[in-house]
């Protein structure tokens, strides 16, 4: 029995452990699910073991990559971590670094997100490695990821080439018992050797470097054939009717499924830890011994495509394994079981769970969609801007606030920073036709630093005029509360230099800047209208509003200082059905009336009326009081408050707050009434400003 310390850790913590055990000196990262937990774990190991390792949260992935890469030129061991789409941002330095190479070991950890669960694509980083011509290791579980890291650093140093470790989400966010190995102490003092022919190679030298790179990759592929720690065969035999080639998580699934089906002694597995460059020799010799070969790899057919003779292969290219979505044990079990039946290998019947699933599906249980937290200031901002510009276009960005979609205040979410560039492109496209419409871009503080600022510079330079809202909660919330440059705190908690978004915005050439507390919804709506007017002025330009309020999850205590307890006053209990007022039963003084002088003829009321009681003929709007249910939606949606309707002073279950404000603490009870979920309500009091009926009121303390 081993006497090493054991812990149950997250895959990303196992990766962090592997990095420190390799004697890494320098680590940089930008947060992104599923990679975000690596850096905090490195900081913990650093503190626990008093290690001299430089750690930084960088501004974006390209910056992180270049910082770590050049540190490796000084001879140090360095690493960088990001999510798979982060590598797109760092693709420029990656491509070049393959040619230039490294001095100290340089390892890139890129976490893929098949599914996808928290990403815009399911891209397979192993393809990026192949494209850039750098080796990639594909760990099967946290334990193997930890084990692969020292190998990755050694490879990188031996061949002077960057090496990628590609865990998928099911490795990064798996948890597993691992043993802690001793931490290597590798003494390396920074020593940059001047060599312009290499470090700033001109195209002529790049050609030579490319040739050297091709030779390196050839040599590495050769070496991989004999690295049995990474590539090995289980249940090897001279002949098999079915064999499996499995890489990464595919291997873990194959192992568990074969043992569950009692086939672990029947079907040989070639485990591939190095999908690129492929150790062709052992792959071909394995295929030679099998009649058929199933290939299990996540997410694209990277190994499959590298095998020249595909006649025996079963996998993604022939559609046996689905070409999109996460590879699931249910699918692989069915595939293996079907193949066994086909090739006369005895296999137990797989019990179906379909009847039960069908019975549950028939219940029509609602799917719980993710939502902004109770008390989140982003909700207030989104509510205010939609209210101010019901017909505006709302480009947004990547972060918690993408969930503004639920409030119909997010029209686009493309990639980091695209809120700003999409807004300026939209402005120019409309402006070209002589049309100016309200365009409100929303971006978080961290995303603005990441890649929003260049888009803003471009917008100002090219004369775009729209409203840019920087939703400043002073933290990178979605990925787990990493500090932003504004806080001035660095990755390991030491003080750095706090940056100011205001100064950055002004530095981009913006003349109109307002900082607003989004908790004042009415004030924010006024500011939004003023900002729009500025963009329309002849001498106007870009208008930037910073809505600043700390993340409620991160700073719960702040809210507790001044809690606003609210309650809902209901109309008298209904005799039957929903407590909804029927216009026919209402005194005429309570019916909605359109004030023509205030009406901006935007048709919002016509579109929003749930029963189609409002129609438009020419410039006139008519309300059909026989249809009107008195629900108040028109009065609440009208952007110019042109529909007058005295408040009932009680909740009539119109559902406006549920639909437009979408707070998880406002729920519809089984009797149809709106209730406050006391378990989740954080007493922010924001909903007081939302109900136009006066149904939500403040409880006096």
């Amino acid at each position, binding site marked *: *029995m*081993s006497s090493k*310390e*054991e*812990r*149950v*850790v*997250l895959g990303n*913590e196992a990766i962090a452990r592997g990095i420190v055990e390799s004697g890494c000196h320098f680590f940089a990262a930008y947060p992104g*699910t*599923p990679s*975000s*937990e690596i850096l*905090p*774990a490195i900081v*913990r190991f650093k503190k626990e073991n008093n290690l001299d390792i430089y750690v930084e949260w960088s501004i974006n992935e390209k910056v992180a990559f270049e910082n770590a890469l050049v540190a490796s030129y000084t001879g140090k061991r360095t690493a960088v971590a990001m999510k798979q789409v982060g590598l797109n941002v760092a693709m420029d330095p990656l491509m070049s670094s393959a040619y230039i190479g490294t001095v100290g070991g340089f390892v890139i950890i890129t976490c893929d997100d098949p599914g996808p*669960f*928290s990403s815009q694509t399911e891209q397979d980083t192993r393809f990026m490695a192949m494209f850039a011509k750098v080796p990639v290791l594909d760990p*099967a*579980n946290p334990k193997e990821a930890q084990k692969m890291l020292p190998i990755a650093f050694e490879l990188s140093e031996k061949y002077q080439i960057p090496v990628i470790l590609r865990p998928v989400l*099911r490795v990064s*966010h*798996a*948890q*597993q*018992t691992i043993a802690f190995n001793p931490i290597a102490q590798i003494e390396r003092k920074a020593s940059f050797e001047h060599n312009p022919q290499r470090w700033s190679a001109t195209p002529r030298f790049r050609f030579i470097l490319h040739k050297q790179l091709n030779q390196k990759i050839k040599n590495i592929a050769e070496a991989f054939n004999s690295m049995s720690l990474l590539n090995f065969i289980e249940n090897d035999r001279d002949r098999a009717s079915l064999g499996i080639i499995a890489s990464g*998580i595919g*291997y*873990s*699934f194959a*192992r*568990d*499924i074969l*043992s*569950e089906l009692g086939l672990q002694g029947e079907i040989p597995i070639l485990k591939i830890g190095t999908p690129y460059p492929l150790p062709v020799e052992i792959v071909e010799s394995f295929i030679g011994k099998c009649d058929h070969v199933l290939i299990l790899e996540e997410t694209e057919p990277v190994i499959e495509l590298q095998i020249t003779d595909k006649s025996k292969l079963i996998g993604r290219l022939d559609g046996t394994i689905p070409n999109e979505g996460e590879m699931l*044990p*249910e699918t692989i*079990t069915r595939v293996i079981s079907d193949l066994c039946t086909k090739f006369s290998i005895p296999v137990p019947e797989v*019990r179906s*769970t379909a*009847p*039960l*699933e069908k*019975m*549950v599906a028939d*219940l029509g*249980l*609602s*799917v*719980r*969609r*993710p*939502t*902004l*937290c109770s008390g989140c200031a982003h909700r207030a901002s989104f509510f205010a801007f939609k209210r101010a510009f019901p017909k505006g276009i709302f480009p947004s960005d990547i972060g*918690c606030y993408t*969930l503004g979609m639920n409030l119909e205040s997010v029209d686009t979410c493309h990639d980091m920073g695209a809120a700003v560039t999409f807004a300026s492109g939209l402005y120019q496209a409309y402006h070209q036709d002589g049309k100016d419409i309200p365009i409100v871009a929303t971006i978080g503080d961290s995303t603005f630093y990441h890649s929003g600022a260049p888009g803003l510079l471009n917008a100002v330079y090219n004369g775009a005029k729209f409203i840019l809202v920087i939703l400043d909660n002073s933290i990178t919330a979605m990925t787990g509360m990493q500090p932003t440059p504004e806080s001035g705190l660095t990755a390991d908690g030491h003080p750095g230099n706090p940056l100011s978004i205001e100064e950055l915005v002004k530095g981009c050439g913006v003349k109109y800047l307002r900082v607003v507390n989004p908790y004042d919804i009415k004030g924010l709506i006024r500011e939004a209208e003023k900002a729009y007017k500025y963009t329309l002025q002849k001498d106007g330009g870009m208008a930037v509003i910073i809505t600043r309020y700390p993340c409620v999850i991160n700073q719960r205590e702040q809210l507790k200082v001044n809690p606003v307890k609210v309650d809902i006053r209901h109309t008298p209990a209904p005799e039957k059905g929903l407590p909804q007022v029927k216009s026919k039963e209402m005194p005429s003084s309570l019916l909605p009336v359109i004030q023509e002088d205030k009406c901006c003829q935007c048709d919002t009321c016509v579109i929003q009326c749930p029963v189609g009681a409002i129609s438009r003929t020419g410039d006139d709007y008519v309300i059909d009081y026989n249809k009107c249910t008195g629900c108040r939606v028109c009065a609440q949606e009208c952007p110019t408050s042109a529909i007058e309707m005295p408040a009932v002073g009680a909740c009539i279950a119109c559902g406006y707050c549920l639909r437009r404000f979408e707070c*998880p603490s406002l729920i519809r009870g089984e009797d149809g009434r709106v209730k406050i979920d006391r*378990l*989740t309500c954080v007493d922010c009091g924001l909903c007081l400003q939302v109900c136009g009926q006066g149904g939500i009121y403040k409880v006096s303390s």
Partner: protein
Amino acid sequence: MNSQSSIRNPQSTLEKMNIQMIISGVGGQGVLLVTRIISDFALREGYPLIGSEDHGMSQRGGSVITYLKIGDFNSPLVKRGSADILLSLERSEALKTLHYLRPSSNGQNGGLGFINASDPNYMNEPIRNYLREKGIEIHIFPADRIAVEMGSVQSTNIALIGFASAHPRFPFPHDKLRQSIDRVTPPKFREVSLKIFDKGFLEGGKSMKP
């Protein structure tokens, strides 16, 4: 990070363990704490563990599901129809994850489910019949009510494990889990957590007489 660390307990006398488990609920209900308690138990007893957690987008109020496998396993996911144990903190999420429980061929000793819900008969007749036929045993317990009554609504998860640990086929011994709760819960909640755990166990003993 789990702050759990341990040198394996060489005195462990428990039999070899191969358990697959699902914990389901809604973001914020403390699914991860349950995971941490079971992980601590496995670590102390020297059983290898692998599992999977939800992070990121799914933590924002969405459905949360954790997979745990204790014993000789390589992959972190539990296949449908393979779980020995289901612990569910929410009634709808329980229904959505029922199909993970292992059906048996002879109608006996299938998967075991423990669900936090106030109405013991909230599942419809056809579902109950189906489960019975497949030997899947479901126990419904108002863990949240017990937790609220004892002054810590956050400890619904602890009440449910306490309840489950009274079942003779529940694979983790009550006293060992109690030690893990003692180690894993933050000091502020420790005392109340243990009380709630014991209360759950007591209620479980009453309603699940062997």
